């Protein structure tokens, strides 16, 4: 069994060129000897036997998984019940699963959990195929037991706008983002490519509160502007929308404070 597995593993492995199980065992044994010497109890037969047995176990496990994956790609059914949910995806697991003797007795914990997980998974798969995030959020909100989460924090945002024309602002921030170092990309006009982008937006985060400051130039065309809020790694953390109304300028600089946290932490 050991030789067959080694041969298969060495030739069929998907780990790429240069990887052989024999070399891996040799390298592991060198390290193990070094570790064992420090323990001052050298039983090298145990180390070698243990490492070789372990490599045999894991390579057999991986090989069986790959064989299962190949069967799925060829459309050969080989799973039962709950496994069927994965047959539609082109990324089957490499998991060989266990033989029937061990698949029946599920632990007490798994029994109530797995059907719920499967339902979630299948429902999310429906949305993951191109449905906008907003629809996803609405769908998920139906399941949110908001009232039960008494200690949850809403997202705290203060918005300050200086504008000659009336303006309304919507800020959507990911939970926890108010504590990060944030910046806003230039806001682009939603319907006019010729309109200049709105720049110079400042976001300061302090004490768990994000403060957004927007100064609208007097000649900025009216309309809806949108832009992304990102953290200092460039990861998207939310969205900023500003609607400048047309018509008479405001009597004074208008200060609008409106924050709409997208989710609870």
């Amino acid at each position, binding site marked *: 069994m050991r030789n067959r597995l080694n041969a298969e593993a060495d030739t069929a492995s998907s*780990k790429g060129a240069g*990887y052989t199980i024999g070399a*891996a*065992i040799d*390298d*592991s*044994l*060198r*390290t*193990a000897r*070094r*570790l*064992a010497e420090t*323990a001052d*109890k050298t*039983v090298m037969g*145990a*180390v070698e*036997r*243990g*490492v070789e047995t*372990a490599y045999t*176990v*894991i390579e057999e*496990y*991986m090989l069986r998984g790959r064989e299962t994956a190949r069967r799925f790609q060829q459309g050969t059914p080989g799973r039962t019940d709950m496994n069927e949910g994965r047959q539609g995806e082109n990324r089957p697991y490499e*998991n060989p*699963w*266990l033989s029937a003797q*061990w*698949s029946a*007795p599920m*632990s*007490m*914990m*798994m029994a*109530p*959990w797995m059907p*719920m*997980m*499967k339902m*979630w*998974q299948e429902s999310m*798969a429906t*949305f993951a195929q191109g*449905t906008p*995030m907003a629809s*996803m*959020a609405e769908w*998920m909100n139906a399941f949110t*037991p908001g009232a039960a*989460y008494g200690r*949850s924090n809403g997202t705290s945002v203060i918005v300050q706008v200086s504008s000659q024309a009336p303006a309304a602002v919507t800020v959507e921030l990911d*939970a*926890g983002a108010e504590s990060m170092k944030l910046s806003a990309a230039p806001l682009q006009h939603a319907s006019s490519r010729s309109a200049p982008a709105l720049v110079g937006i400042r976001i300061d985060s302090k004490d768990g509160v994000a403060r957004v400051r927007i100064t609208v130039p007097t000649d900025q065309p009216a309309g809806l502007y949108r832009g992304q809020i990102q953290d200092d*790694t460039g*990861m998207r*953390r939310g969205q900023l929308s500003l609607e400048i109304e047309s018509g008479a300028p405001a009597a004074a600089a208008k200060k609008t404070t409106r924050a709409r946290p997208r*989710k609870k*932490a």
Partner: protein
Amino acid sequence: MASAGIMTVDGLVPSILEEYGAATRDLLFRYLPDTEPRRYLYDLVADYPRRGGRAFRPSLCIATARAFGAPFEAAVRSAVSIELIHNAMLIHDDIEDESEERRGKPALHITQGVPISINVGDMLSMLAMRPLVDNRTLLGPQLTLRIIEETERMARESAEGQAMDLGWRRDNVMDITESDYLQMVLRKTCWLTTIHPTRIGALIGTRGTVDAEPFIRFGFFLGAAFQIQDDLLNLEGDWRSYGKELGGDIHEGKRTLMLIHLLENATSDEHDRLHAMLARPRAQRSADDVRWVCARMKAYGCMDYARQVAHGLAGAAEHEFDLIYGSLPDSRDKRFIESLPSWVIERA
């Protein structure tokens, strides 16, 4: 390459475990409902998480994500979910194993009874779903779905491993080999403890583009070394730091590497006595039985044997670490993961 410093575990591992563990727990408690029924459910749900623990699993997830370039926030919800599932499994494992202590205190079912404890474990595992669903705002629906799929697989692998362990004990199977033991540990321990956290972390760090298969190999060697060391501590450890009754595995009839080695080397009479002892219900195994098994294990060098196997597996984990983390830029998180193979076999 594994550095020469791998021989000594400095303060990096405990430092990161403390840092990421505290951050994980902070968010975890915000996912625990503060509502009724408190006495029979929600106060108890918080019991095991409040007892502490090393937070090894969530820390490994966060560190892997960061080593691959993700910010902390991108991984912390998955880490919370892992810790919640771990605590849920502990409650049920304690019932199934008839364990009496957990993290230095009576196990939940000892103080609250089995029915309520099962329900608390169920609730904890359900609560683990919410942070995974919340991932969608930061990670997007595709990666969120992938992580849920990964969690489903981990849960199944863990239950299958637990089934093997429980089945061997119920049927008093005596011809378990080292290979059988490692197959059981691969599923029961390694998937939740090391494979799943590293796969999730790497998927987050690469936005789902990494080949997750090599993490099974790395996680297996690391997790198996972890489990063997844990079994050794159950026999030889310090009660205060171990947090469970010493010798409990023998009492529970667990098929550990030491027991398997003993069964392979015992005389016919000793084998018969072991068989008779393990055939009895846990309550009928005495402290004298446990002492006798311990003495036989020492006489046959079972602890030394298991310790050497753990060293070998740690060496294999180092080798696999180089293959999947070696090309990443140096970072505190990468060094933390690199230190783990030696840490798991040196921890007390």
